[in-house]
């Protein structure tokens, strides 16, 4: 113990520093590239239904990402972020949770949201910021959120969701306090998972959030997606030491590192993490290692900072790897897979065209939700603006014709 109040210090008489790299955390790997289980690994129990849903989600997100990346290049949406290379990490972790567990994501976790049931049209409405967008057209594309699906709305500032996840999880725990004794129940219904990249782990919020979770025993699963790059900054310019996992250990948090391209390893690790959080009421850190095959966002161009050789070294496709395993289970065949892909592509195109045609949110959405009800200054400003638009309808074509 390093607590100065604790007399049982581990006394040593040698002047010796512990090397910053002394801790090397292993990486859990279950599935081989050929879709077999490693001889010394144990596959988690996963039902055919869950396994197929997991695969279908990854396949869907890959196709959606491809199409929307294209739509951004055509100028139809202003921005997009794909999760190329990290599909298994995000989807398999979400698949290991309860539907009522809270997901607090960074921005690249659309697969987790789709796994929960966010529909193609809901994705499109958000990206086109039309009046059917749950977020009422206020945030850039990919800032999804859904109360019904327990998926906290994305916030652009990096890492802010990390201490929030600790607080949210603490709420899930406080709910189980016995009013008479003040004691906590031994098992918690629901936990929180918090996704972030290795870049976000440099923010103060990361350290504050992990420390508070450890100290106050919040049932939160921190899921660090270490994908090698924070926009254009490579991991070696982001941190020293043994990745993000070593920090979890430093904060006194149970920690595991997994191969993020291995859906079964991620599933197994998250399932166990959830059990620890729910039954022991404490946080867990999972570091997933899965190379970001694509760009950070459509505003980024990785050809400027990484070589073709490097990209070639990381060509493992997490979707194909899992597909091979599914085929070996006899749960999937190539022919059906190809047909499904074609059908999804058509659906995506149709949904994109539908969302494009839906009108923008009404003018009153400018001032709604700033507060629970508009404060007097907002009402005044809104009335002035409305009168101005009525006088100059041609200058404000999106709203002028619809003002009540």
């Amino acid at each position: 113990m390093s607590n100065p109040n604790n007399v049982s210090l581990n006394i040593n008489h040698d002047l010796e520093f512990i090397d910053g790299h002394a801790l090397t955390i292993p990486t859990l790997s279950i599935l081989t590239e050929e879709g077999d289980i490693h001889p010394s690994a144990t596959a988690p129990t996963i039902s055919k239904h869950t396994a197929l849903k997991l695969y279908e989600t990854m396949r869907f997100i890959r196709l959606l990402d491809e199409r929307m990346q294209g739509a951004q290049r055509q100028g139809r949406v202003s921005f997009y972020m794909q999760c190329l290379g990290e599909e298994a990490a995000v989807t398999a972790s979400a698949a290991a949770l309860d539907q009522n567990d809270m997901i607090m994501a960074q921005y690249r976790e659309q697969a987790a949201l789709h796994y929960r049931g966010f529909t193609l049209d809901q994705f499109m409405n958000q990206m086109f910021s039309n009046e059917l967008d749950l977020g009422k057209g206020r945030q850039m594309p990919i800032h999804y959120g859904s109360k019904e699906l327990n998926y906290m709305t994305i916030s652009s500032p990096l890492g802010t969701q990390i201490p929030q996840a600790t607080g949210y999880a603490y709420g899930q725990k406080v709910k189980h306090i016995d009013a008479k004794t003040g004691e906590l129940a031994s098992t918690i219904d629901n936990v929180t998972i918090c996704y972030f990249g290795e870049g976000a782990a440099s923010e103060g919020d990361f350290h504050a959030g992990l420390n508070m979770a450890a100290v106050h025993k919040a049932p939160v699963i921190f899921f660090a997606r270490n994908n090698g790059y924070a926009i254009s900054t490579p991991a070696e310019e982001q941190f020293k030491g043994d990745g993000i996992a070593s920090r979890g250990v430093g904060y006194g948090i149970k920690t595991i590192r997994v191969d993020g391209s291995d859906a079964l390893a991620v599933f197994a690790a998250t399932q166990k993490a959830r059990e620890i959080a729910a039954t022991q009421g404490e946080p867990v850190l999972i570091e997933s290692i899965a190379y970001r095959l694509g760009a950070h966002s459509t505003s980024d161009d990785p050809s400027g900072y990484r070589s073709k050789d490097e990209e070639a070294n990381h060509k493992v496709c997490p979707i194909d790897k899992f597909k091979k395993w599914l085929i070996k289970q006899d749960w999937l065949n190539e022919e059906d897979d190809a047909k499904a892909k074609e059908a999804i592509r058509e659906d995506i195109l149709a949904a994109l065209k539908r969302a494009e045609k839906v009108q923008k949110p009404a003018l009153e959405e400018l001032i709604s939700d700033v507060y629970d009800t508009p404060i007097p200054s907002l009402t005044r400003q809104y009335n002035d603006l409305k009168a101005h638009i009525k006088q100059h309808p041609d200058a404000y074509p999106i709203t002028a014709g619809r003002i009540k």
Partner: protein
Amino acid sequence: MAKMNMLHAINSALDITMNEHPQACIFGEDVGYFGGVFRATSGLQEKYGKHRVFNTPLTEQGILGFANGLAAFGAPALAEIQFADYIFPAFDQIVNESAKFRYRSGNEFNVGNLTVRTPYGGGIAGGLYHSQSPEAYFAHTPGLKIVVPRNPYQAKGLLRASIKDDNPVIFFEPKRLYRASTGEVPEDDYTIELGKAEVVQEGTDITLLAWGAQMEIVENSAKQAHEQGISCEVIDLRSILPWDVETIAKSVTKTGRLVISHEAPITNGFGAEIAATIQQECFLHLESPIMRVCGLDTPYPLALEKEYVPDALKVMAAIKQSMDF
């Protein structure tokens, strides 16, 4: 009714809240067993347990991040920042997160259950890091409510209203008055409506406007002015955001003169917003320019505090200047 100082009144408001909602939590630096640096949370951990009243690690950023999450879950989050000077590490969590939670999500999520309490202001020989009045920084951020009480009765009623309000509220407590200000306070629950100023004293010649600890100063100036035959209308703004334009405009329309006083530096202080709005609302009724008596545009000093603060004498000088214009 019972005689209480401001700390007792705040403690009583927190006690009622903890009793009312089984998931309400009080947290911050040293707020647990110790009861906070000023003892505002004394006795609450014994009463409600360590899971609901607890010390946090020393991380203001973490306290507000945690508070946002807890409030988003639906539990009343009663966060304390030990001194308002130390709220800045939490600035991002307040300005980018608390303030925008509801708006950015289209009301899918909100942190209306969040109340941040923090002692502000000078007068305790605290120097530049224990004396600041940062209300104007937050008043520039849509989505927050900002409240400052002037005495124990106001503190309890406004704090209960802040906690019940379905928006994130920053509640600035005038630390100089924690023990210095005492008065009759109901032991039962009551609230004072947010966003409403209070006319503390009616008058006809000039309006004096302030909030928090500065109210005591302007009330003293009003007494001095009265002795010189000047009738002051004294108003406590109480809520900085949203603020009560109507009550101030009505008063200034009547008196034709306005002096605004606050401890924070004058440039871009909240007095500037009030002056701009009131000159627009009351232009044809004004008999003299709107005056501001505020802190200097310097960090809050230690040795020369008396010179720095906008005291009753400085307010009195402004009253005379306005009357003689």
